[in-house]
């Protein structure tokens, strides 16, 4: 969710290293980049490192930015790649988890939880406990599904922008998005299904 109210950046000024325009760029994108890193890593210190590394790398290579995608899409790509590098550097046993199901099919999508929990009071969805459940559920997603869900559904990128940011085809983005959404729905249905029994 980039702040749409901000005045558009002057790309030429940014690329020429104009410090005021660079500052505006960092101000405009620091919140979304931090959110992406935090959701990818679930660790504030690591998210801060990724935030800093993303902008350091961006500033170093801005002059080579060709504008084939939006500046925001390019920054998101750097942030996701930096996050994946942090995950790789963690203890060896915590390796990158990919959803190995082929990207071209929807096999393996599970629909076992059929509980209509939408009618729960809104306060249920806003509680700290729910926040923790949401974080845990997203961390359970394989990284290649997590990154798609974060960019498309949390940051609100289009399918095309998500595909550009992650260097995937649009078909692959749609397939991964479906899997990510359905896995999260299952996880939340287990939790909210139990909450339903208290009403």
């Amino acid at each position, binding site marked *: 969710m980039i702040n749409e109210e901000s005045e558009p950046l002057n790309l030429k000024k940014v690329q020429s290293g104009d410090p005021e325009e660079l500052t505006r760029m*960092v101000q405009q994108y620091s919140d979304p980049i931090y959110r992406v890193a935090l959701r990818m890593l679930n660790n504030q210190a690591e998210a801060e490192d990724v935030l800093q590394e993303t902008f350091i790398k961006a500033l170093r290579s801005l002059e080579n930015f060709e504008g084939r995608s939006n500046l925001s899409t390019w920054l998101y790509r750097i942030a996701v790649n930096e996050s994946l590098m942090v995950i790789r550097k963690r203890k060896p046993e915590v390796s990158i988890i990919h959803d190995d199901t082929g990207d071209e099919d929807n096999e393996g999508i599970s629909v076992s939880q059929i509980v209509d929990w939408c009618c729960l009071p809104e306060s249920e969805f806003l509680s700290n406990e729910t926040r923790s459940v949401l974080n845990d559920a*997203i961390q359970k997603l394989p990284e290649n599904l997590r990154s798609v869900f974060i960019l498309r559904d949390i940051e609100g990128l289009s399918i095309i922008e998500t595909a550009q940011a992650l260097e995937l085809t649009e078909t692959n983005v749609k397939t991964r998005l479906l899997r990510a959404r359905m896995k999260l729905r299952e996880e939340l249905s287990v939790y909210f299904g139990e909450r339903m029994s208290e009403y």
Partner: protein
Amino acid sequence: MEKHLHCKDFVDTISSYVDGDLSEELCVELDKHLSECDNCRIVVNTLRKTIDIYQHQAENEKAPEDVKDRLFYRLNIEQFRK
């Protein structure tokens, strides 16, 4: 889900359905299925709600000010911050 084949077809397209990304013709067909299948209706409603609560959680979520202070300092542009 009682009508397995049709429900499976629905699950395959559910993501594009909630995004409003399907042809009108297919939407009409899926709407008809939803009006007849309680289970698929629950799945689509809870899927929408799942996306909605993640979006809501992230709304207005900002990087902490001390994190931003350290970022601007590291980038050596803190003096241009307004």
